[in-house]
């Protein structure tokens, strides 16, 4: 199981090839703009989070499907996944 760390809006398409069912995704930095949109993924059971500091800093209103996490939450997500892949 992998955690995909997305830091720009274009990271989403770049990481798709490496995703598997049950992976998790966290939006940080400029990728948090995606939190306001509906993200369509080919895989099932993908939990999507966004880093609250970056969301708030940019004044973005995330859709309900996105879980907001703070830095300790980001660390916890990394601890839960064997591989953390940055895109």
């Amino acid at each position, binding site marked *: 199981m992998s955690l995909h*760390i997305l*830091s*720009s809006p*274009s*990271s989403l398409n770049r990481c798709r090839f490496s995703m598997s069912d049950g992976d998790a995704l966290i939006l*940080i*930095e*400029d990728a948090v703009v995606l939190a306001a949109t509906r993200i369509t993924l080919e895989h099932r059971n993908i939990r999507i989070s966004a880093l609250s*500091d*970056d969301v708030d800093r940019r004044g973005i209103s995330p859709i309900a499907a996105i879980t907001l996490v*703070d*830095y*300790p939450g*980001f*660390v*916890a997500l*990394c*601890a839960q996944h064997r591989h*953390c892949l*940055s*895109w």
Partner: protein
Amino acid sequence: MSLSFALLVSGQPCTDQSSLTALRFCQAALDSGHQIYRVFFFNDGVHCANRFTTPPQDEIAVPKQWTNLQKTFDLDLVVCISSALRRGIVDAKEAARYELDGHNLADGFSIGGLGQWVDACQNADRVIRFGGNAQ
């Protein structure tokens, strides 16, 4: 459960947010009871170690923030030598070797080879990269 993290910082601190993300992540990981095995500065991330960085007075320079964190937690901050030399980041030893007229490696950082990153990858529980995703 307490884990050890190896962090790769590869973003330019004045250009993208990633080095600040790495700093906050580092602090949060330590506050959560985890260990930081090593922070390795690679590619444009080596600019995080430039002590000549001089931002406006109301901003804290990224190198200073790393130096402070290093002092507090005795972190192992290693700057990749091949990335660093290409970008003009040198300590006194390298400055002498290449006959440069100054050196700029900030306090708390050391210069090392990629072998130290490979070692970190082998020994840490988690490997996480920050930055280097510019289009």
